[in-house]
């Protein structure tokens, strides 16, 4: 095939991929959050019950492909993926050792498919929408458990927000220790991570209280405020 036709084909492929990415992303983003989360639960349950390795590997491949399509980043960063790959590898090896190679692959493909499905839902659903679902689910039980649904939903949103912060914190502590010539080991990291996490938790509490997040707000009243406005 000559260079011109090859470049045209690549261009067509790029357009199709772009179109498919946009279309798939739009379709998934427009689905209600509750529908997606419910779908994830059913999918997970069905997948746990499935044992055919051909089906499992096919579904895992499809889910990874969907995940790759809906991502906004073009490249997959090995730096971000290696802990996950390591965890999956350890589980695969353990299952293969205990129950045989086939069981190892069954466990591996299940993990990959479930992870990719969960990631896809996360990438195509706003935190606010997910929190709305959490709040809707918790509200009927709120009187039973004396729980504030808005606060529980806030907790959910905070967890998502804090994940990259905790990773960043880990890197900062590790770099500080490396700069001091201290060997980076788990027990060396524990105390600084714990102290910083507790400090962050306190600061977050203050910020949440100051903004009155997750609380009912009384109507604003006219206060005695001689104008000091500019």
């Amino acid at each position, binding site marked *: 095939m000559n260079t011109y036709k090859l470049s045209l084909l690549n261009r067509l492929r790029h357009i199709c991929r772009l179109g498919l990415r946009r279309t798939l992303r739009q379709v998934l983003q427009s689905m209600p959050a509750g529908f997606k989360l419910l779908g994830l639960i059913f999918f997970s349950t069905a997948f746990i019950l499935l044992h055919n390795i051909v089906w499992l590997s096919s579904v895992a491949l499809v889910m990874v492909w969907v995940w790759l399509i809906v991502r906004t980043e073009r490249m997959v960063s090995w730096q971000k993926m290696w802990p996950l790959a390591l965890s999956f590898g350890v589980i695969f090896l353990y299952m293969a050792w205990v129950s045989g190679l086939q069981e190892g692959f069954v466990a591996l493909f299940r993990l990959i498919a479930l992870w990719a499905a969960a990631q896809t839902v996360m990438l195509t659903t706003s935190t606010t929408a997910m929190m709305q679902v959490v709040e809707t689910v918790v509200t009927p039980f709120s009187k039973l458990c004396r729980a504030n649904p808005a606060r529980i939903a806030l907790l959910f949103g905070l967890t998502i927000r804090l994940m990259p912060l905790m990773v960043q914190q880990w890197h900062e502590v590790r770099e500080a220790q490396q700069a001091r010539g201290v060997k980076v080991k788990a027990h060396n990291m524990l105390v600084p991570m714990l102290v910083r996490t507790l400090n962050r938790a306190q*600061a977050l509490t203050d910020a949440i209280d100051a903004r009155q997040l997750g609380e009912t707000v009384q109507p*604003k009243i006219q206060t*005695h405020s*001689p104008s000091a406005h500019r």
Partner: protein
Amino acid sequence: MIINFNQIFLENPTRQILRDVSLSLTESRIGVIGANGSGKSTLVRLINGLVSPTAGSVVVNGLDVSQNLKLVRQLVGFVFQNPDNQIVFPVVSEDLDFGLKPRLPNANDRHFRIKETLARLGIEKLYERAVHELSGGEKQLVALAAVLSLEPEILILDEPTTQLDLRYRNRLMHIVSRLKQPVIFVTHDLDLLQDFDRVLVVDQGQIVHDGSPRQALDWYVVHMSQPMGQGA
């Protein structure tokens, strides 16, 4: 604005943080400066009830903070030093939206308010951005937007420029200078308070100087600039 501190004492088991502080704050732009551990942040945290005094009372626009905490917190907006500890949602628009929900039940109203606030601070392009991708300066502006979107009557900023570079620091100060609300600004940076109406100098839990920026800054430079361990 009237904020009255009435014979405030605040102590913890190891030391006295604030000692016999009595003040009346009415000016539009008030600066608070002091050394590390002087009590300046604690002083301003009394205003919106993040900290409670051991003795004495704080009254904000006629409302006793200890008895009207929720109402006072509606009036007083607070911006902290580290924006990562203030922004609680992963996307900028989500963070502002959640804070506005109790006050503006209508989603369109919230959307409009958020867009308007971000535009006022010149960061409307950050609307759909993930917070963890933003620079420190952008995060601090987003934190400020989250507070301003609630339309507080009084704004307190506790060392908001500490983690900012010169460009964002100047930008933040330009925004602050145009705000209609009275502002109480805590900082180490003496240069930022030149145009303020009043500057309080806090040292070892007491207000050691209270006056115009020029007087307060001159006093601060003379008395506070000596290295630690040397007498006055």
